[in-house]
């Protein structure tokens, strides 16, 4: 009786490479993805479903933007920071993007140290990732309050089309919620790693299942996904 993360592919299975291998795996015995644990498969399928949510959000945004009668606000003016006497277009958003992408880097380090069973460094890297994620959310709060103080509301917008406010708050809010949930899970996981739950095979509080360092990698999948989504939001909102 061990946990479900452990994968044993029998040695007798000689698998073909490439497309024939894919077909062989799918038509084979017991499991379609040969060296993928249940929870990792679940995360991938969840992310596929989530991809649809964000794609449909962005498609709705594009449709609204193309069909609105009033002009769309100019991104490099709306999202600029006024420091001293000059306007820096996209300065804040550049920093935010940098922070979030960096957090993907520290997440990768956490996964790496996790597989080396380096308990402390893994926990530290998870904490750093969570910290960067929280910084991102904090800067988003700043950006929101700046826009709100300039009069942007979900239902109206002094700079142009009223849909701008609604769509912007909705989509960045939905993404920000994803980041915030990620931060909470990172903190919980950092505590588990620090305590050594994955070394002592402690049962999960809710699920009564044993965890191991693969959980860090699955957390990483989610985190990188949230980053990737941000790249698209960044491109469609700030560069269009």
């Amino acid at each position, binding site marked *: *009786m061990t946990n479900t993360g452990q994968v044993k592919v029998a040695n007798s299975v000689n698998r073909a490479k490439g497309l024939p291998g894919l077909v062989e795996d799918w038509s084979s015995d017991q499991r379609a993805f040969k060296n993928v644990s*249940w929870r990792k498969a679940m995360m991938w399928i969840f992310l596929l479903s989530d991809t649809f*949510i964000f794609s*449909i959000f962005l498609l709705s945004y594009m449709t*609204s933007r193309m*069909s609105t009668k009033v002009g769309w606000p100019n991104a490099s003016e709306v999202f600029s920071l006024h420091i001293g006497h000059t306007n820096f277009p996209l300065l804040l958003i550049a920093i935010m993007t940098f922070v979030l992408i960096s957090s993907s880097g520290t997440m990768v380090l956490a996964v790496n140290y996790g597989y080396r069973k380096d308990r402390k460094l893994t926990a530290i890297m998870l904490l750093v990732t969570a910290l960067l994620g929280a910084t991102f959310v904090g800067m988003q709060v700043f950006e929101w309050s700046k826009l709100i103080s300039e009069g942007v509301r979900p239902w109206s917008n002094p700079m142009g089309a*009223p*849909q701008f406010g609604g769509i912007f708050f*909705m989509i960045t809010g939905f993404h920000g919620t994803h980041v915030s949930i990620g931060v909470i899970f990172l903190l919980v996981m950092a505590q588990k790693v620090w305590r050594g739950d994955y070394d002592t095979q402690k049962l999960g509080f809710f699920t009564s299942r044993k965890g191991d360092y693969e959980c860090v990698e699955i957390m990483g999948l989610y985190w990188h996904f949230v980053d990737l989504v941000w790249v698209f939001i960044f491109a469609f909102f700030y560069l269009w």
Partner: protein
Amino acid sequence: MVETKNTSPPSVPPAEVDEVELYHAKSFWTKYVFSQDAKVIAIQYSGVAIAIGLVALVLSSLIRLQLGFPEMFDFITPETYYQFVTMHGMIMVVYLLTALFLGGFGNYLIPLMIGARDMSFPYVNMLSFWIYFLAVLVLVGSFFVPGGPTGAGWTLYPPQAILSGTPGGKGLGIILMLVSLALFIVGFTMGGLNYVVTVLQGRTRGMTMMRLPLTVWGIFTATVLALLAFPALLVATVMMLFDRLLETSFFMPSLVEFGDQLSYGGGSPILFQHLFWFFGHPEVYIVALPAFGIVSDLISTHARKNIFGYRMMVWAIVGIGALSFIVWAHHMYVSGMHPYFGFFFATTTLIIAVPTALKVYNWILTLWNGNIHLNTPMLFSLGFIVTFLNGGLTGLFLGNVIVDIPLSDTMFVVAHFHMVMGVAPILVVFGAIYHWYPKISGRMLDERLGKIHFWVTFVGSYLIFFPMHYIGLVGVPRRYPELGDAAFIPDSVATLNSFISLAAFIVGIAQILFLYNLFWSLRKGRPSGPNPWRATTLEWQTPHTPPAHGNFGPELPLVYRWPYDYSVPGASEDFLAQNDPGPLDSESST
């Protein structure tokens, strides 16, 4: 029951997945209420779905009261009529059929049929049910708020859905409806991830994808569709909630309401229609594909004959699933889309007829020269094939743009989709309950009551929906509480409407027989034994009936063959169970 031992021939595949430690319930609460056992969750899902479905059945009777006997009942005003229609549609499609097929049958049958101890993530599975239950509570709650539930029609088209002219539009009705849908989607996603992962990664030894019973194939494909289609509804729900609560204008053009210029402006109602039907059309197949799968297993078992063209059936299910994502705008021919879109979507819609027709041919060829036992599950399956064919043929009319435009928003459309996604899947639900009830309870349902139930339901549905096609062809629009004295409507329509209503009441009352049968047989039914239908699939080979926690004995079954080995020459019985090594060699079968 075949006890599988590790001393079996060397061709036995090694176990790739270690046994998972099951969660063992310690108290009444964790065993029956917050249970993590897929079988208990399945019964919880089915119970709630059937209960809310009965509410929708009562609503449909109220609709028929008004249509059959207009101006006779004071308590049905146009407003309440719209509320009845809306809630009837929404409950039947989402909260009954989707939840029952995937949450109910999916939870019960997937682990048993693929030879797993339980779903891959029992805790998430439990959450899935309780969030679904919460969604149902919110939905029911909307009946009791001031202004009542929403009356926007089950499609909830804006702008009218959130304006004061529509019942519930400015009250809590529409808000609770949208919140309930969002909750349903969250809950379903949790369950859906479970079903997909369990089928892909949790099968027992020897159970390849091409040895799965078609029931599992149907439920699996439908779940994949749901995981990809529900996001569109979730996004539409969130955006409409914002339109209603924050006065954003995602779906709202500038409007004058009762002389007042509203603050909305610049939104696109057509965008909502696209989002809704991008969910709505796959939803039809989310309901239909499990029915296809189940009916394949039922007719094969009760005709004692292997399914004809198993591979074709699998590919038809997958093909229909894929095609269902590129046909959505055939619901929108009259919305003012570009005509080229109509051309494209009419073409894809008609292409879907190919795999569906293929399935119907294969069912008929399965029955051909079979040893057909005309028991209740078989009767319901035959009823399904006929009904689905009828509904499918009218679908060909509606799929063509020029034929659809005059028929749009008439009772013809109502008759069509009730035939194809109302009556047909419900017949399968009944057939499936008569078929699997012995495994769930250990007792047979009463055959005599079952046959009466079948004939009244089957003949009754035709008496309801066949005349409705005619009413629609005359040009009677749908969603009108009463018709008044329109010159183009002949008197026969009123007579037919009364007749339809009477038939509907008889069918509705006949369902009491079914419920009585369910409860009576639970105590007094004939004990069934482990495998009353002498079926081949794994759920009938469990050591206990009903199956115990963990489903199978100390060892999971070992699968030697596909699930359709009926009437095999040389076998001692007329069927070979999937875990039966067989009389010949152990690696004999397909």
